[in-house]
């Protein structure tokens, strides 16, 4: 399968990355080579093989329902671009 310029622009929007037309064209060109590499995967029949999502057979660890974290929002918000009254500020989304 081959990708189109529209695919690149659609994916960039999904990923919330602004791309210019010339960037899109360059990305498309590089994707061609990268997806040729990736398509090599289709050369093996993996019917019946269970997908491996993780290196170890780990199960989610349970813990007792106790408070372990302390409120450090001031410390964590100290590295935010814009904060007011303990709230992260973003451009207005509701008129």
């Amino acid at each position, binding site marked *: 399968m081959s990708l189109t310029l529209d695919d690149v622009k659609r994916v960039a929007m999904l990923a*919330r990355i602004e791309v210019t037309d010339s960037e899109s064209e360059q990305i498309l060109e590089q994707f061609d080579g990268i997806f040729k590499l990736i398509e090599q995967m289709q050369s093996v029949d993996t019917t019946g093989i269970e997908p491996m999502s993780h290196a*170890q057979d780990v199960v989610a660890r349970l813990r007792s329902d106790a408070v372990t974290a302390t409120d450090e929002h001031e410390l964590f918000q100290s590295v935010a671009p814009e904060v007011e009254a303990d709230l992260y500020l973003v451009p207005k989304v509701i008129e």
Partner: protein
Amino acid sequence: MIDTSLKQLSADLAAKKFSSVELTGAYLDRIEANDAAINAFITVDPDVSLAQARAADERIARGEAQPLTGIPVAHKDIWCAKGWRTTCGSRMLENFRSPYDAHVIQRFNEAGAVNLGKTNMDEFAMGSSNETSFFGPVRNPWDTACVPGGSSGGSAAAVAAALAPAATGTDTGGSIRQPAALCGVSGLKPTYGLVSRYGMIAFASSLDQGGPLAKSAEDLALVLDTMVGFDARDSTSLERSAEEYARMLEEPLQGLRIGLPKEYFGEGMSADVRKSVDEAIDEYRKLGATTVDVELPASELSVPAYYVIAPAEASSNLSRYDGVRYGYRAENYDDLLDMYCKTRAQGFGAEVKRRILIGTYVLSHGYYDAYYLQAQRIRRLVARDFAQAFEHCDVIMSPTSPSTAFRIGDRTADPVQMYLSDIYTIAANLAGLPGISIPCGLDGAGLPVGLQIIGNYFSEARMLNVANVYQKQTDWHLRKSPVASN
């Protein structure tokens, strides 16, 4: 004190031959004098490092020292260290000062080690040459026209240039082993789950694993002791009793079975690499090891599978950089959506964007089965191949990288060419197996060649033994880069 092993440094500190302040100061002086040519460090903070050294000296005086107390260690700038700028090699985190310590940093602090500074790296650990760093490329101390490998290139170059006695790195597809090979140092990627990922900035969570880089296997063992340990804050951290990784270092190799996968000795490898690796394997035969041919047929698809799985996980992990809670925010934008898009367009470099876009595409509607699920099935086949191979051998050996260090700029135009730099290292990440790279020769241009040793799960102590006995017989790991001699 610069060419000394960690064990000897520890003994000298205990014997008060010199203090941690003197030792740390000596390394800070070397960084000051030499790092302009190498660019191995993104951040150095002598006041903080020397304060830690003073505290270590007091601890040594009280008789409460541990093996790493007072020893300066450089940390890849992927580890959050409280108060330190933690950039991950990106403009996105250019001014991010971590409000907390990674588990690994906490372990080094508890051990009394000195944080010598934060090392340069490919942006968000995505790269094999250290050329994707926002802070400029790192230069190989053996030839400053060449790359040091990546993504832990700053850490590898720092050790190779004797700017640090040891360093930490992370390895998602070869990012400890490949730069270790290209810089002529020793590097170890542990079994997945041994080193906590808490506070280690995420790239591909099912593959990422932290580990040490140092001058020798013996030094790696000592640093690994401090890095490994259960941490409830990482859901993939394994609960295991503590090991002393140096416990088997000196055991003879008589009867060791070395698996040689033919898939790792095929086309694409340079003749010099081949020669050095063959000679290393001959040396192992002299030490009493036997070799056996093993097959890892699915490994040939590990690069394609990796370039689906790693970008897919990265696209999800890096969605957190939105300009709201921390990190870079674009200056001018129209609305919230525009703020996200401009922040991410300006904050990320080209390679990171490329991988986010690949990941977003392979996970998007209609493509998930063909790409992501197929890659995960191949991942299973890769792991099965290793399981079968380890029925016939104790360790697997191969070159770490198909070539020695390449020139800066040589592979930047072609991402696929760059991705193939990790062709021998990626399979161990997919399977979650431990791998080591140790120096085993120099090519015609005098650049280091790395030997990769892959072991079964949790066999780090044995692998370090295998590496150490070789290093006791050979002197490749003692060869010094020109910058280290400055």
